[in-house]
């Protein structure tokens, strides 16, 4: 992830230094002159990282899927998962991903109110998600269903916890991006980082779609 927040001198490779209007057409003309613009190279590299992150999640998911029935006589998903909580978590993350997109539009259109407002909304919704998840974990551990109870629960905590860690790291990154735009303005290098952040945040929501459907909903579905 840190690869996306590296400091770039800005526009050396024929990228965005000259981009004042931030127009797409402008980057296209530059591209034909100097090869792909820095914005495309950075975002594409980050996209490759995100795909490897998805592969990481799929490995954790595969181990969960294999171990779902290995409850060692302990509680199953049907005993533990509470769908109303999961619904609220899902709503939080879905709305936050939309606000994250609106923040990107606000940054491209140089609308401060839209950018800061949407980023703040994204942060509040993301933080709510993490808080609900931590509360869920605490309740389960308190009830004796911690990760040490069974292989099923170890895999569950590893998978959901890994996603929660990603969201928490994303929240820190989000605050950094708000501070960077405040301190440095909508410079091309800052906007590249914003693009990477948006990609990261949207990808986390895509991972959550798989988790709430295939872990929680399948977990409580009648067999």
């Amino acid at each position, binding site marked *: 992830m840190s690869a996306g927040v590296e400091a770039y001198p800005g526009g050396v490779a024929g990228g965005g230094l000259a981009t004042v209007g931030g127009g797409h057409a402008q980057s296209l003309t530059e591209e034909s002159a100097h090869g792909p613009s820095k914005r495309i190279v950075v975002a594409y590299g980050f996209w490759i990282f995100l*795909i490897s992150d998805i592969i990481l999640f799929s490995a954790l998911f595969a181990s969960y899927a294999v171990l779902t029935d290995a409850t060692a006589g302990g509680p199953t998903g049907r005993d533990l998962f509470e769908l109303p909580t999961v619904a609220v978590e899902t709503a939080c993350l879905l709305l936050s991903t939309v606000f994250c997109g609106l923040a990107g539009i606000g940054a491209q*259109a140089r609308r401060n109110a839209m950018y800061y407002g949407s980023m703040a909304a994204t942060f509040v919704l993301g933080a709510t998600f993490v808080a609900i998840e931590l509360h869920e974990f605490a309740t389960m551990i308190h009830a004796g269903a911690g990760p040490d109870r069974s292989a099923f629960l170890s895999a569950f905590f590893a998978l959901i916890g890994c996603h929660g860690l990603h969201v928490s790291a994303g929240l820190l990154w989000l605050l950094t991006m708000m501070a960077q735009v405040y301190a440095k303005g909508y410079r091309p290098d800052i906007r590249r980082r914003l693009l990477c952040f948006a990609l990261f945040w949207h990808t986390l929501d895509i991972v959550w779609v798989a988790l709430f459907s295939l872990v929680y909903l399948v977990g409580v579905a009648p067999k």
Partner: protein
Amino acid sequence: MSTSLPESRTSLPEAHGDIAPGDEIEPTDVPRAIRGYLIGLALATLLTCISFYIARSTLVWQPSIPIALSVLAIAQMGVHVIFFLHITSGPDNINNIMALAFGLLIVMLLVFGSLWIMTHLDHNVMPIERLMHMQR
């Protein structure tokens, strides 16, 4: 899906190359960009609600519920990829699509490969209690 593709793209000069993953297709048109996210939100909400409803209802034949939920999840991920990540099937997006396709291949190999091997092991390995019983 075709409504999210702007007409102006076809009128671009020959020189168009790639676009970055996540980039707005038409960044200067703010209302249009917002509308894209709202369409995505509506579709994602609809699919989420159906998933939550199906998981608890008797509407669907019960053994097929996991499959139905998987299909709905894949559909929703597609909605996210198109409306939020702006990864479309356009010619300027081909590199992004190829990277994603390769990632999906690895994901499928990992998940289905693990499940396949482990269920076979499950079937072929005798439970430890039975084994102990036979040794007596």
